């Protein structure tokens, strides 16, 4: 039994944290637009956003690999001008995770926005407030449970990512070797004890995170007076 190290866990959480932050910033405007638009292009963008849900991670990983490699326009651009490589390192994992977890952020936000009373948003416009002000001061504060669900599920889903990471990042210690990959490798070398410990930690942590979300959402329904 080799010594237990926590680097893969820390890496997993760092990756999930950064991905969640980036996705949140990008998805709020996208989900808001999707919920409000009457454009005919809406189904197209909805299908595109949901694609990572149905694609095998290997397919997603393969195309991200192709798109970011040094032979691709994107990869060569970053390599030439910023001297940054986008694959087999942490940056690459962040980009891949953003694609992989996109629907988990966009969909709860979109359905949250869609559940808001149309009249309430119109009341804000009538009050002289722009779409942007309405989003910040009325829409977002009124979808707190959806916000929390989106953030937590995106975080948890990124922590649980495996296939895409293996394709795009490989298994470089402290760079791309996240918890799920570490467990896979332990099983490969038949280090079941550590695999057990890692897996059990994942199960317990995931459970308590989800439990927290459901308790919060339950309480939200019965909130009342301003404290």
């Amino acid at each position, binding site marked *: 039994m080799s010594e237990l190290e926590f680097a893969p866990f820390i890496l997993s959480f760092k990756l999930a944290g950064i991905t969640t932050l980036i996705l949140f910033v990008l998805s709020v405007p996208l989900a808001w637009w999707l919920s409000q638009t009457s454009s005919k292009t809406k189904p197209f963008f909805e299908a595109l956003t949901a694609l990572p849900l149905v694609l095998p991670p290997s397919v997603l990983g393969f195309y991200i690999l192709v798109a970011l490699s040094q032979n691709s326009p994107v990869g060569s651009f970053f390599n030439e001008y910023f001297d940054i490589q986008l694959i087999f390192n942490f940056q690459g994992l962040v980009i891949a995770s953003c694609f992989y977890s996109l629907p988990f952020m966009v969909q709860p936000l979109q359905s949250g926005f869609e559940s808001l*009373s149309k*009249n*309430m948003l*119109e*009341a*804000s*416009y*009538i*009050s*002289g*407030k*722009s779409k942007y002000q309405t989003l910040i*001061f*009325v829409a977002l*504060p*009124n979808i707190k449970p959806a916000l929390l669900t989106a953030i937590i599920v995106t975080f948890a889903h990124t922590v649980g990512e495996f296939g895409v990471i293996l394709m795009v990042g490989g298994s470089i210690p402290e760079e791309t070797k996240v918890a799920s990959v570490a467990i896979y490798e332990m099983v490969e070398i038949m280090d079941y004890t550590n695999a057990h410990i890692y897996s059990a930690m994942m199960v317990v942590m995931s459970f308590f995170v989800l439990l927290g979300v459901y308790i919060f959402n339950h309480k939200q329904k019965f*909130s*009342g*007076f*301003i404290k």
Partner: protein
Amino acid sequence: MIKIKIINHILNLDLEINEGDFIAISGKSGSGKTTLLRVLAGLDSANGDIKVGNKIFLNKNHHLKVQDRNIGFVFQDYALFDNMSVERNLLYVSNDKTLSNKLLDMTQMSEFKNRLPNTLSGGQKQRVAICRALMRNPNILLLDEALSALDPQMRTKLQNILLNLHKEFKTTTIMVSHDPSEIYRLASRVIVIDDGKIINDGSPKDVLLQTSGSQKFSFEGEVLEIKKVDVIFIATVAIGQQLVEIVISGDEAKDLKAGDGVNVSTKAFNVNVKKN
């Protein structure tokens, strides 16, 4: 002067309203009443001209944005901002504490100003919504069946509040309503719309009073039950919120059955029940 001349897939009407008036819009559901308010507010689109005082809301090459029209709108479902306290709901529109305190005071809502909307009753919520609509000192106040979800006592209370507010602020008000007593009490002019067109326009008295000939009074009602008591028949009729029992003759009873719409009227001493 407010000049409205609009055409869209529902409406086709031409209308002038004096500033400071309290106008009621009446008509069957689906006749375009709410659409008219929404077009005025800029929430729905239409072709034509809308001019409020010197401000052009709509013409051939200009559609003033909702945000810039300075309208007060009260929805039937209140549409309060659930995340904000009563007072924040008002201050969100305009950060004017003097006005918000005055409005909350006039509507007897001051003691609730730190409460969240979902802890209030329907009548309280609608008072907050009315206050909120007045926070911008709007050019026009639009009420879309604002009181119809409330019980009769609360409705009367809010009608009085609306009257007081109208006296105080003299805001031109356009109210969609189905309730004749409400219209009679509040409005100085009624416009009846059907199928997007104006079919009647005048004072509430002229438009709403439906007695004809020499009848002293008459009501529209619905027969709920007819039962035989000895040699007479008694019809139970629902008139508005009220149930009345009326003695009818055997001939009249033959003609009527439960569910029939009837006109109940008196002339001299007899109560007449006539099938519509």
